[in-house]
């Protein structure tokens, strides 16, 4: 399995897209930290970047990579190797390379400009988001043989989680505004990894204490060690479920 991961990684690095991605993140992060004035502001702007571009690039890159390495996978399947191993090596290869790019591109500037718990949460969230959206990309890819369709599904997933979901939830909150919605909101944010990541970082910036009564309530939930652990646990779940289900589909499917 390690050998396959190595080949996948080499293949990805050869394509130079990951290097471009690293440089893009690095430039943006350094730029934002220098423009923002205070490190907190830099973190906030970076948060928007992490939550918009990282999922998009992860999901598009992973989908195209999956379809491009279809022949390689077919070749491997012909060998006496477990299909699950092939799939997992592909997944881990892509996820590791994108996370490494993220760690260099965002993690290093964060350590330089704003070392602290919030920075750590931001970087952790970014890594989790990468793993989650690569997993979703693989789920989209194994569900159809057609490359265009696969990329379409992947983009739709990104669109749903980054934009549509929040719109739907806001509409629900507005429609049921007369009811106590504190815990319902909590459950609804847990159903979207991007929202979950945003809240973990936001509630640990000092703006969090400024959000009045409800803000204080959520702060007391997410501010504690258990709350943060639970939130990251949920993110882990968000990565594991698509990986597990796509692996299942991949190992049973007629290639």
């Amino acid at each position, binding site marked *: 399995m390690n050998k396959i991961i190595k080949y996948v990684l080499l293949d990805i690095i050869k394509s130079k897209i990951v290097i471009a991605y690293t440089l893009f993140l690095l430039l943006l992060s350094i730029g934002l930290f220098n423009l923002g004035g205070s490190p907190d*502001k830099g973190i*906030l702007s970076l*948060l*928007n970047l992490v*939550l*918009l571009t990282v999922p998009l690039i992860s999901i598009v890159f992973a989908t195209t990579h999956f379809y491009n390495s279809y022949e390689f996978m077919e070749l491997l399947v012909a060998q006496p190797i477990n299909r699950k191993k092939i799939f997992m090596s592909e997944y881990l290869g892509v996820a590791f390379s994108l996370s490494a790019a993220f760690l260099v591109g965002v993690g290093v500037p964060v350590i330089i400009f704003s070392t602290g718990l919030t920075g750590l949460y931001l970087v952790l969230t970014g890594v989790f988001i990468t793993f989650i959206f690569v997993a979703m990309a693989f789920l989209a890819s194994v569900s159809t043989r057609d490359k265009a369709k696969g990329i379409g599904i992947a983009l739709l997933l990104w669109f749903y989680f*980054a*934009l549509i979901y*929040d*719109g739907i*939830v*806001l509409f629900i*909150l*507005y429609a049921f*505004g007369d009811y106590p*919605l*504190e815990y*319902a*909101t*909590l459950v609804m*944010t847990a159903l979207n990894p991007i*929202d979950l990541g*945003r*809240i973990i970082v*936001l509630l640990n910036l*000092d*703006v969090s*204490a*400024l*959000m*009045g*009564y*409800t*803000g*204080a309530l*959520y702060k007391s939930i997410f501010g504690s060690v258990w709350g943060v652990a639970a939130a990251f646990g949920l993110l882990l779940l968000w990565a594991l479920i698509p990986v597990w289900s796509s692996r299942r589909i991949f190992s049973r499917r007629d290639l």
Partner: protein
Amino acid sequence: MILSFKDKVLSILSFLILFTSGQPALGDTLKVCKSCSYTSVKLAVQQAKAGDVVLVEGGSYQESGIEINKPLRLIGKGKPVIDGNNTGQIITVLADDVTIEGFTLQNIATSYTRDDAAIRVIERNNIRILNNTILNTYFGIYLQNSNNITVKGNVVKGENTGKTESALGNAIHVYYTDNVAITNNIVQGHRDGIYLEVVKNTKVHRNTSQYNQRYGLHFMFSDGNTYTYNIFRNNGAGVAVMYTDNVRMEHNTFEDNWGAASYGLLLKDIRNSVIYNNTFRRNTTGIHMESSSRLDIKSNNFERNGWAIKLMTTCIEDTFRLNNFTGNSFDVSTNGKSQLNHFEHNYWEKYSGYDLDKDQVGDVPYRPVSLFSMLVEKVPPSVMFMRSFMVDLLDNMEKVLPSIIPENLVDEKPLMKRIEHDNDRKLTQVLRQTAGTP
């Protein structure tokens, strides 16, 4: 001209009366110390004649219930400690023209029926309470039905950890008392730092009020008072002022008042007042305004608050000019569409307009209320979606075509640059000129 005999007698008599009644400066000095003729402050005060000085030297005195019933000066030299040992009120002033200076007064237990204080003044005039340190008491300084009082340079510190609001007294409590000067005091750890009820013509100047359980400053029905250069920090619910006319609040700092129901400044039924040159920093809500009218809010800084201003629709004819709004989560929020207040020449950090004619005034009006802030006002849990892309998108759409946010709540002339309040006379002059010409 010859004076009649009666007049002569009268003038001699009045002279005699004046002489014998004594001027304060000519009184005796009664020393109190461990080896002096007086070893108890209480005894010395009892023995003193009107106009005397009771000089207490350093040391610790276990006393309470000291009643001052004649004009005298009670002066501590070398910070003598009067320890009430939780046996009741320490000093009660029952005479005019009394000075209490330089003591450390400590330990008064909570007393729900008597409201024990370290120093209480009852129905008296011309009292001076200077440079005392008051520690661990129920009420600190309690002034009732009095007039012309100076409270200066005192430190009042209480212990409020683990106590409920009702088990705590106020550090400086003023009730039905006019012409009070409260200057340079530090008050902390009580229920309210400075509490004024039905108090007129009072100056509260350069005090620091912090870590109080409830309000840093609390006043009601107290017209015509001035509050300048005070610092209100980390109080449970900030500063609350209610039912008052003609207030001047200038150069105060309201900061770090964080919490579920915490405000930098809560204004309820305040009229005809001015709020100039204050700084509101890192509060949950900078100013919360309710039923307040004809206020002039000028040259204040709002920095990094959750809500800089919460302006309820019950407020009318308030003016906001030359304020800086920087780093706030929400600049202004309101609870309805009707708006009868005026915003002009403020600096909004979130403003993204342009200035083609370079007069430092933006050419596009700025609407400080965002759609999202209206939504949060209606449905508080939606605050969880702060900084989500959807929210930013909706806000920007609403800014282009306002339909839900109040149309009249708008700054027609937002400034392009942050105002430096100390040295921007030139800018204000320019603005005045441009405002004058159509």
